[in-house]
């Protein structure tokens, strides 16, 4: 079965159909409903035998590279510190088909936002590399 990462983003990706204020500005009850939905997705994936992993990432980020022999690592905020792509977390899933991954991603994107309305958040799908098929000749 193919494995996919469904990536949630703090920012980056296509424009939202209806812009949403940042979460700290939401009604607390809406935040609770949002969190409960994300946990419900975990339970649903586990119950169906499709769950591999789910993690959230903090918003802090820094770019690091090798600085050359004897030099300290080079650090950067990235090319677009305020607007660049920022991953918020992921679900890793193992499903029967790409179609099923799309279905789950769309479901995640229906998560409740302010006023309990769907967020319509963009979810990025990436396939995880797998072992080669044994009939490649």
């Amino acid at each position, binding site marked *: *079965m*193919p*494995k996919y990462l469904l990536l949630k983003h703090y920012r980056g990706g296509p424009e939202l159909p209806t812009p949403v204020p940042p979460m700290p500005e939401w009604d607390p009850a809406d935040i609770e409903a949002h969190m409960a939905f994300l946990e419900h997705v975990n339970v649903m994936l*586990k*119950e*169906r*035998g*499709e*769950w*591999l992993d789910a993690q959230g990432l903090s918003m802090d980020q820094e770019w690091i590279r090798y600085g050359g022999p004897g030099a300290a690592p080079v650090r950067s905020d990235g090319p677009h510190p305020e607007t660049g792509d920022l991953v918020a977390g992921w679900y890793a899933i*193992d499903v*029967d088909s790409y179609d099923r991954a799309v279905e789950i991603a769309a479901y995640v994107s229906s998560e409740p936002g302010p006023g309990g309305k769907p967020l319509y958040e963009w979810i990025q799908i990436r*396939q995880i*590399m*797998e*072992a*080669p*098929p*044994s*009939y*490649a*000749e």
Partner: protein
Amino acid sequence: MDEGLLRALVPQVITALLRRGADFASAEDAVQEALVDALRTWPTGPPRDPRAWLTRAAVHRLTDAVRSEAARRRREERVDEEPEPGPTEQADDTLLLLFLCASPQLSPTSAVALTLRAVAGLTTREIADAFLVPEATMAQRISRAKATLRDRSLDAPADVAVVLHVLHLAYTTGHQGDERHDLAREAIRLTRQLVLASPEPEVRGLLALMLLHHARHRARVVGGRLVPLDEQDRALWDHDEIAEGVRILQGALGEQRRGRFQVEAAIAALHDDATTAAETDWSQILSWYDELLAQSPDPVRDDPAAVLSRAVAVGHVLGASAGLLEVERVAPELKGRYRVDATRAYLLRLAGDLPEAAEAYARAAERCTSTLERDHLVRQAALARAAARVNDV
């Protein structure tokens, strides 16, 4: 401890419990728990009678869950009195469970997981490792599969083609594990048992295909690198396995009821038969591909993968440009699949068009979803580019 013997006992003990009135889901769970106990305790304290031990342990688990102590004792006594089954009964037990697990109600991957546990006697942990998923996820997938089968009658007629499909899938997903989790080996073992129980030539066709393909597995990945068929060290092939596959295939073909597994096995046999890649009998391979395509009314739509594989044979027999035309015939059906570009690249290289081959290899690498194969395609792209540059000079 003889793990093979222990695993072979699993379907026998499950069916013994079914005959005693247990339902499939509970019986299968109980035997899995008994199996895990056996794997833990047998190495230090092997039982005198393994079958009786496993049956007892499974009955114990079963009745722990649902029944009183008295009922347990009665059940243990009855199972103890049962005579050891002969080879025919063992084959029948396996067949019964294979048909049950290969239900069209299940997704093929769920059917494979359930088959590996209930028929092959693998533990949930081992199956999870082979599929690279957490153990809890695999356990949940198997129990969902059993819940789907709950209302299905044990003697419902099943289609041998579905069982073959499940075994074939178990085989093809099986090359990723190490020796211990070699699902391919398990699939071969189960298909051998099915051969004992079914006279269908396609069953032998599938067994032959698996053996003729599995014979090359040591040459296929060397030092973490994928080695394509034409570059494999043929001394590493298992020639006993090839001989057995050829013998079984000849018997099946003799019945004149050909199916796709027999035809695919014939193609594999012709590859195995060549002492060097250059000695490959491509025109015979091409005629078997023609027969493979004749199995579907509209091969381009119904079996595009076979049309694509045939294009390579066409390239070798009728010339690379004829092969490339075949690729273009099927490319729209397989839109964007990396194997289209990988096949194009192979044929372009065969035609001596190295710059175009390099580009096609690079495009294939971009879309490939397996690390090992992608690395191979990247190397091929780089080699073709380098060779093209040398040709220029």
